[in-house]
């Protein structure tokens, strides 16, 4: 059984490390398209997506379109702060018409993005695992605006984004995902339980390997030739290092 445990743990680690290579191509494109479509649909100044980090103490803006988009992407803010913070915690959507009346709002926002909206619509991104982030729409201008319809529509975008993000995570958490799936499918209860136990213990991807796998994935999107070139450069470097270490 120990040997089997070790093999399973090894498999989980390996799968977790290479998982990011397998994230469906176009996932990022889908998220970009979601923020851009939402922005256009609402004739809004901007739309952005922010995700909760693993420690659940920070929101990380992973996608944005419209005003200030470039400075918003990559921005981090404490999860327990401001209107987005309340939405994350309560799981409730909220729209505020005159957000500049919110104390400190303008200064905080302008400082981080260079754009201060008048109105804000914030909705939680929710999966079966709970709230994983928020989607925000700034300054909607549509002629026949209806708050209830806007919320309903953004709800559809939020669901779409949450599902895309979750599927991306399943790949980066491939070790767990594989073992969990195998556990469910296993005919024998003992084996099923063992697999599920390992799924719980499966390590997160090692940062360096996950980064490399992620780069690999991005290179694949650029083109097969480019990926081949980088592979060759890496093999040459490895060969060089081996010869020099051998001396």
């Amino acid at each position, binding site marked *: 059984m120990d040997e089997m445990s070790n093999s399973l743990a090894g498999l989980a680690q390996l799968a977790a490390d290479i998982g990011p290579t397998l994230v469906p191509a176009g996932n990022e494109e889908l998220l970009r398209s979601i923020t851009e479509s939402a922005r256009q649909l609402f004739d809004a100044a901007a739309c952005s997506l922010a995700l909760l980090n693993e420690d659940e103490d920070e929101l990380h803006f992973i996608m944005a379109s419209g005003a200030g988009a470039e400075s918003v992407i990559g921005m981090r803010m404490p999860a327990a702060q401001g209107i987005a913070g309340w939405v994350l915690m309560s799981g409730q959507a909220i729209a505020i018409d005159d957000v500049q009346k*919110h104390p400190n709002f303008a200064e905080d926002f302008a400082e981080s993005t260079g754009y201060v909206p008048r109105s804000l619509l914030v909705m939680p991104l929710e999966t079966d695992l709970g*709230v994983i982030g928020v989607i925000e729409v700034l300054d909607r201008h549509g002629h026949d605006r209806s708050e209830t319809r806007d919320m309903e529509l953004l709800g559809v975008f939020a669901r779409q984004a949450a599902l895309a993000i979750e599927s991306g995570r399943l790949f980066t958490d491939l070790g767990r995902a594989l073992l969990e799936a195998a556990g469910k499918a296993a005919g024998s209860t003992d084996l099923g339980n063992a697999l599920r136990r390992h799924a719980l213990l499966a390590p997160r991807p090692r940062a360096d390997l996950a980064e490399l796998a992620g780069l690999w994935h991005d290179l694949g999107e650029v083109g097969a030739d480019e990926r081949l070139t980088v592979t060759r450069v890496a093999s040459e470097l490895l060969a060089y290092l081996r010869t020099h270490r051998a001396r």
Partner: protein
Amino acid sequence: MTLPAWSEQFDDARLSRVSVPLPEMVTPEWAWGGAGGAGVRVAVVDSGVDGSHPAVGGIDGGVAIEYAPDQPDSVHHVEGPHEDLFGHGTACAAIIRSLAPECELYSVRVLGQRLTGKGMVFAAGLRWAIEHGMQVVNLSLSTGKPEYFGLLHEIVDQAYFSNVMLVCAVNNVLAPSYPAQYASVFSVAAHLGKDPLHFDYNPSPPVEFGAPGISVDVAWLEHSTITATGNSFAAPHIAGLITRILSKHPGMTPFQMKTVLSALADNVRA
């Protein structure tokens, strides 16, 4: 004669008198005319309440509950005054106050620390409200996590059996979220109306009541007022009306209250 279990309480000598016999002719005048919520304890389970906001006009007490994994119940209670960390609890308290100016308001702060342990903190807030004799509880928060289904259901049942009216804002996602999804709570979404004394009853639940929550002016942080939209602003409108009705008809039970509300709803009266 041997009675089956639970039958003794229906013996004529023991059966308690129902303080609000229904049906009666249910009109707004009968339900809340001349009443202001006096003697009714109302808890706002949210981000805290700024009692010094002129629209809130003071609160009577409260507790801040924080996640503390090393404690027996995984939570830590800090009784006494606290600030509102976001503004939302103050907004809800002010709406309730506007409808039931004489009620006793309590703030149960469960939001604001972090998300970890949210379900435990949330459950502890509900327990505190039930154990401290709150009669109406306004909840603008919910969780869709299946692992909290059982825990929250147990507490919500306990509230129902203690005649505590739980008023819950439903969330915006078309998926179950708790406790708004449970049958015994007053589940509320925003309707298009603006008049705080008017609401709708939906005979096809899970969402049972519609109340003002679209572009409403609400109290916020640092004595400010903002214009906001959300189901979470509709719930305190229903909580406020329930408080008012309860002050005129003490002893009313949650299902009687639902009956009265449904009789008073615009779409039913029309």
